[in-house]
């Protein structure tokens, strides 16, 4: 038999195990919340069982050993021998964490077990042992002094197709004790009738030694239901347990392997794992297609003969097809935000216990889809916001009672579409921002000299300042002074923005607005000194022609112009990016009013060229980050145009103002 490189399956194992852990966690939390759905414990058991089996197959012995103990405990609960209580849930939740860490370590190729996992394993084992002593005493007694086991194993013909390998199982048995096997060839057909993928051989196996029944059963867990299996205790001097007892455990675990298959073909998980590289390649190709199409469109604009009517119609079709193809391909990358939201029930539960606050978590819009790359990066900022909301936002139970509110605070996490963006809101019904504390802290930190004349928005802005924190005592939850500025920077890096709305006594709402995707943007193309730049359409407020007279020069070389009832700074692209030979007179060019990070400014360019979709390409892939530039794209003529980073320019502008 050819040797199979198991490493290629490791990735899939880790992915599946993590999904299993997430399912376990969700089910445990539901149990913790008082749900008595019997299916929950089965879900937890199945997940633990799959992880154990996979870990054993792939040689992650530490993980297998740990999950085995957890599974034993779960088995007791499942079979009704143990009632699930808060302590058990707590222990199992901690096990989920430990297994997650162990899997990470296994993936990194370091030994998975550490002091923590060992300690927890002992705790679990102690729990299991206790229960066994109490309720399963006779069984244990029977197991003592076993001479060995006779096992009749007759695989059904399709066993091999389920991916099970009798040899591997026999090796496992051989590791338990001295082992003999006799193959039964009675079912073997003639060579002509033989199907190479079917199992025909049966075995009579003999295992010598004092081996617990559970260990023997564990070996056959995966083939339960796919074979005829009879395990009989090997008679020593006296017949020990009545033979009736033997099939019972096998019958007691009938839904375990079936459940495993259910998980594998779970209709909810109608998803396939596709390598991101493949998708990226596909996106690249579609990007090229878009470019080709715009090339053709330009050609059609240039030639105006009547015979070209059909050609134009074809082009229109091509344009539509391209767009549709692009949308469906982009869809592959879109994942529901529940991937990120799923971690919050646990986080909120742990935090509220730690802080002794009552919090009910309200998750909404979990099916809202986000680009995978956005999704991966939005998790940490959201965790920050949720921690802050529970730590700082929500008041203690006593304070809430005094304020006449419900003792249980509500934390709402909601995702929805608005325009071409995804909005994620983190809202609490706590006390709102403490204006006095924020202003006081800002003065103490030297960010302000006095709080006079500050609008509520200005005060809210303060908490985004680096190193700002109002927590009186630094807890390990929040208040380390890093946080809100990092949240804002991370969100900005994704091309999004963070806004804050706070009502004293009513609560605080953080609103994160994110682009649907990072891969394609709608942009306005503008030329400066013969160079082409792309300004993302989402940041544009308006384009205006400004008369030279309405521009005020201020000390330090800055220019301001009047837009509606505000004075906005002018940023000349030619100065920001060092383009030689651009138009100097404000009246000769055009000003694009853009908004980023809650501030507006006017971008001065020579002229506007038009609007187009831009497939965003990374500059960093082969070069490095360039400040003021968020990426590049390829124009219809195959040349490269740079995409202006509005938020970056706004930051540069405010730095200049500070300097």
């Amino acid at each position: 038999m050819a040797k199979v490189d198991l490493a290629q399956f490791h990735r899939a194992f880790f992915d599946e195990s993590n999904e299993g852990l997430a399912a376990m966690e969700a089910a445990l939390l539901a149990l913790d919340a008082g749900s008595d759905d019997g299916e929950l414990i089965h879900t937890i058991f199945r997940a633990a069982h799959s992880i154990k089996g996979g870990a054993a197959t792939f040689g992650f012995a530490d993980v297998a050993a740990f999950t085995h103990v957890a599974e034993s405990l779960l088995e007791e609960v499942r079979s009704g021998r143990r009632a699930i209580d808060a302590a058990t849930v707590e222990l199992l939740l901690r096990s989920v964490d430990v297994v997650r860490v162990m899997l990470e370590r296994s993936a990194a190729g370091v030994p998975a077990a550490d002091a923590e996992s060992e300690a927890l394993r002992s705790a679990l084992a102690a729990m299991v042992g206790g229960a066994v002593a109490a309720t399963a005493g006779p069984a244990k007694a029977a197991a003592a002094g076993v001479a060995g086991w006779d096992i009749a194993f007759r695989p059904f013909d399709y066993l091999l197709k389920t991916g099970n390998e009798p040899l591997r199982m026999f090796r496992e048995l051989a590791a338990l004790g001295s082992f003999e096997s006799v193959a039964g060839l009675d079912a073997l057909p003639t060579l002509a009738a033989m199907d190479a993928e079917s199992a025909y051989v049966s075995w009579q196996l003999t295992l010598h030694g004092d081996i617990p029944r559970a260990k023997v059963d564990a070996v056959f867990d995966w083939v339960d239901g796919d074979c005829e299996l009879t395990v009989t205790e090997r008679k020593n001097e006296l017949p020990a347990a009545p033979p009736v007892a033997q099939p019972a455990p096998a019958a007691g675990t009938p839904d375990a392997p079936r459940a495993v298959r259910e998980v594998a073909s779970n209709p909810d998980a109608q998803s396939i794992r596709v390598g991101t590289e493949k998708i990226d390649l596909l996106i690249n190709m579609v990007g090229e297609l878009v470019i080709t199409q715009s090339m053709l469109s330009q050609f059609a604009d240039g030639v105006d003969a009547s015979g070209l009517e059909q050609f134009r119609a074809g082009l229109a079709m091509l344009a539509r097809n391209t767009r549709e193809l692009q949308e469906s391909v982009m869809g592959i990358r879109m994942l529901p935000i529940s991937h990120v939201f799923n971690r919050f029930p646990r986080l909120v539960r742990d935090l509220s216990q730690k802080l002794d606050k009552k919090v009910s978590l309200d998750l909404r819009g979990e099916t809202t889809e986000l680009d995978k790359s956005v999704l991966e990066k939005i998790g940490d900022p959201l965790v920050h916001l949720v921690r802050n909301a529970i730590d700082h936002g929500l008041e203690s139970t006593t304070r809430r009672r005094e304020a006449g509110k419900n003792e249980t605070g509500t934390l709402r996490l909601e995702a929805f579409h608005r325009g071409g963006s995804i909005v994620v809101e983190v809202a609490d019904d706590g006390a709102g921002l403490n204006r006095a504390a924020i202003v006081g802290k800002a003065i103490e930190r030297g960010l302000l000299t006095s709080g006079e004349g500050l609008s509520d928005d200005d005060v809210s802005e303060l908490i985004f300042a680096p190193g700002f924190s109002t927590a009186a005592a630094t807890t390990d939850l929040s208040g380390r002074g890093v946080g809100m500025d990092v949240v804002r920077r991370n969100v900005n890096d994704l091309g999004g923005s963070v806004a804050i709305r706070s009502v004293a006594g009513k609560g605080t709402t953080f609103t994160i607005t994110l682009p649907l995707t990072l891969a394609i943007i709608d942009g306005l193309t503008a030329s400066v000194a013969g160079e082409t730049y792309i300004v993302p359409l989402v940041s544009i407020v308006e384009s205006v022609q400004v008369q030279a007279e309405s521009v005020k020069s201020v000390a330090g070389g800055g220019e301001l112009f009047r837009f509606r009832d505000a004075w906005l700074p002018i940023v000349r692209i030619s100065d920001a990016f060092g383009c030689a030979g651009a138009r100097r007179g404000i009246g000769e060019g055009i000003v694009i009013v853009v908004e980023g990070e809650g501030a507006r400014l006017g971008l001065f360019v020579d002229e506007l060229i038009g609007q187009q979709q831009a497939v965003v390409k990374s500059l960093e892939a082969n070069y490095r980050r360039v400040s003021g530039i968020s990426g590049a794209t390829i124009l219809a003529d195959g040349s490269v145009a740079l995409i202006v980073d509005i938020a970056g320019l706004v930051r540069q502008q405010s730095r200049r103002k500070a300097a």
Partner: protein
Amino acid sequence: MNDAANQAMDATQYLTVNLANEEYGVDILAVREIRGWTPVTRIPQAPSYVLGVLNLRGAIVPVLDLRLRFGLVREEYTATTVTVIVTVAGKNFGVVVDAVSDVVDVDAAAIRPVPDMGTAVDTEYLKGLTSVGERMVLLLDVDRLLQPQDAQMLEAALPALADVKAVA
């Protein structure tokens, strides 16, 4: 027989390019493709020798002018001016040279250290020099061409600057 085999093992192929009447060798394993000169898109805040970026089948690839990198005068781009696309540590970049000329086998033993003077080029970017017949070939250390310390320092400084967000 054995000696010949050993020699073949030690020999590395180099693509030789012409630059200001001197011949330079680029490890052929680093060369991804050779293209005719096409105009590039300038990028802001780049060192003077980085001409800009070009579209290499959908990837954005920076292009540097080897003459400017070595502090030489840039001449007009002609019909023979080429951009050699090289791959170093997974990153691609283009190197503009006057012309490509040859592929030569260079025995590792025949590579001599570069003397500190005598060439117009900063020796920092050279791995060594060797002779091919009567010609002298300077072997380029492509890994170092697009890793200017100044760019790294600038990048290191950027996040710090971003932190200094003023509160009005």
